[in-house]
């Protein structure tokens, strides 16, 4: 059974995403969830959970922050509230948070999500031993490696099939520091304006850079997509597909989720023509965001 997971930025979008075919919504808020399209408060999360459940869908709450003492102090109460509203799963990457989940013995499963650090089946097996029900794969893995990993495991590996990936997380406010140094007028920059970095040696590069209360996050130049490889993934048991709308809001993201749902149905019906779906994805894709396959189609030996 292929599962489509999509980030939800609001109650309205959540509804549209469910209509579009998402099986599971991914949402969360400060200070426990990282890199969300919009951080949500508990009330909003609860409404989304109620909506999802009424439609037979699930909600995973992002608790993937690198937690400091202060967050850990507040985490137990947050967990209790999430348990009361019966969220279906958590995404957790901090071993301290995992220890707390064990201690509190709440009936919420968690998937291990530590970004760049999840790169082998043996690592995931370790976290399964610590209670994880699955794991989010690093985006620096190749499809060959992902297939090898899934073959060794009986729990799902979540793979990003659409969206940007974070390639750098700093605890420092790197944009503020830069503008302070240059005494630039920060007011000229809108609060939700996305800035990009370009490596002058690579004219095609444009890395989105976002600063928030967690620090600074830099994303890949490309929105990764595995649209062309969905059938191979399905044949190899990679059936947990994540679509990340952290940089793509509203209906534009919903349309892409709908396309992946259609692709899923085509695969299940044995009528998937990848070229056609790739072309349709290109039409939906925002003009200034290139699509690419990142590391997925590289040979494992090409990256050292």
């Amino acid at each position, binding site marked *: 059974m292929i599962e489509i997971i999509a980030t939800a930025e609001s109650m309205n979008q959540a509804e549209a995403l469910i209509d579009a075919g998402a099986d599971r919504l991914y949402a969360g808020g400060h200070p426990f969830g990282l890199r969300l399209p919009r951080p949500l408060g508990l009330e909003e999360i609860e409404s989304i959970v109620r909506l999802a459940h009424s439609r037979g869908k699930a909600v995973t709450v992002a608790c993937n922050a*690198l*937690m*400091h*003492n202060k967050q*850990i102090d507040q985490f137990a109460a947050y967990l209790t509230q999430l348990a009361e509203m019966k969220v279906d799963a958590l995404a957790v990457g*901090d*071993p*301290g948070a*995992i*220890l*707390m989940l064990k201690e509190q013995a709440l009936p919420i499963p968690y998937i291990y999500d530590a*970004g*760049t*650090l999840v*790169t*082998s*089946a*043996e*690592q995931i097996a*370790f976290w399964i031993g610590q209670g994880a029900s699955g794991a989010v794969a690093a985006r*620096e893995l190749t499809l060959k*490696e992902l297939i*090898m990993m899934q073959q060794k495991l009986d729990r799902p590996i979540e793979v990003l099939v659409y969206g940007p990936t974070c*390639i*750098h*997380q*700093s*605890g*420092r*406010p*790197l944009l*503020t*520091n*830069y503008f*302070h*140094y*240059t*005494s*630039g007028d920060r007011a000229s*920059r809108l609060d939700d*304006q*996305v*800035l*990009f*970095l*370009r*490596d*002058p040696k690579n004219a095609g*590069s*444009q890395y989105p*850079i976002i600063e928030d209360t967690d620090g600074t996050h*830099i994303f890949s130049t490309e929105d990764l997509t595995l649209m062309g490889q969905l059938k191979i993934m399905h044949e190899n048991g990679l059936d947990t597909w994540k679509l990340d709308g952290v940089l793509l809001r509203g209906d534009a993201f919903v349309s892409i989720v709908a396309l992946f749902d259609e692709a899923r149905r085509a695969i299940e019906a044995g009528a998937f023509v990848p070229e056609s779906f790739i072309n349709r994805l290109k039409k939906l894709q925002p*003009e*200034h965001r290139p699509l690419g396959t990142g*590391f997925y189609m*590289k040979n*494992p030996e*090409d*990256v*050292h």
Partner: protein
Amino acid sequence: MKTMVKKPEVLAPAGNLEKLKMAIRYGADAVYIGGQAFGLRSRAGNFSYEEMAEGVAFAHERSSRVYVAANMVTHEGDGRGADAFFKTLQSIGVDAVIVSDPALIVVCFNAAPGLPVHLSTQASATNYKTLEFWKSIGLERVVLAREVGIEEIRGMRQHTDIEIEAFVHGAMCIAYSGRCTLSNHMVNRDANRGGCAQSCRWKYDLFDLDDGEAHSHVQGGEPFSMSAVDLSMLHHLPDMIEAGVNSLKIEGRMKSIHYVSTVANVYRSAVDAYCRDPEHFVFDPAWDEEIWKVAQRDLSTGFYYGVPNEKEQLFGKPRKIPKYTFAAQVLAYDPVTRRATLEQRNNFGIGEEVEFYGPNFVHFKQTVHDLWNEDGEAIDRAPNPMMTVTMTVDAPVAPYFLMRKK
């Protein structure tokens, strides 16, 4: 009333066997090194098993310890041979391994039960519960993320008794270590498998694409960058010690003998001075002077007293730091003639002002008055690398004293 819980260890980097011995001679309680595999410094001179064995024997004779960094984040197949690696390390007598990948931790526990495991800073341990987690798994020590503050360390110490190791000196990642794959995406080199290309220290354009066209946000011709100045907690060692840090870590397995010996010497001296009499501890300005002789960038306190601002990043023209050069190493000293035999490491000659320094924070300046070559002939300069020369010194020296010049 200051109460010192326990004297912390001074932990120095050692890129090769010679540096290991120097670091220990200059006061390191422990050193960390890399093996031929599973580490993150593919370009540092990594140790063969034979060199490791010699290093461990040398360290243990002097009541020092050797830790081996095996902090790679493995992909499928990378863990091959890790069991034999850890077994061999244990049989050599290595005191601990530094690991971040849980897959390698499990291999190590199974292959070398009893070999202590330290969690690498690459795993970004930032809270007391995380420390408790790793203790429950069986780790003996956690190296903290560099994003942790002094106050947070105090909080950790109240909640857990696992050993805490924290960086006090050296270069820093600008990202949470392990959570940066700039190198992977920019140059196909895996930062978490030893390929870090230090892309954070490059210069970048900064722009928006609001109407589809790039509009620059670069100000005053200064490109965007995210290069951190270096860390130094030399002026705040009492805070680190009182917070309950067990091991004070100096960064730099790629650094020179001159660097490692100087930094180890300074931290050894400062930690001893504080722990001898915390009540009456006075900071010795000579420690500061010595540290700046090997500084490569400006120095800062990182996250220990708050989130670093723009002053803790390298913008504009780097501040000029006077450069000192490692000029010679002492091979022998004759107290009767007051002559030292030196092995040359950089060109120097009569009339030049030089500095000698040795373990136990001994150091003095002098002018080179005279110089003889191996055949006893008077010479003006020592121009040849590794040549042996003799000169009169103003104060006693001993083998392994080093000589630097401006």
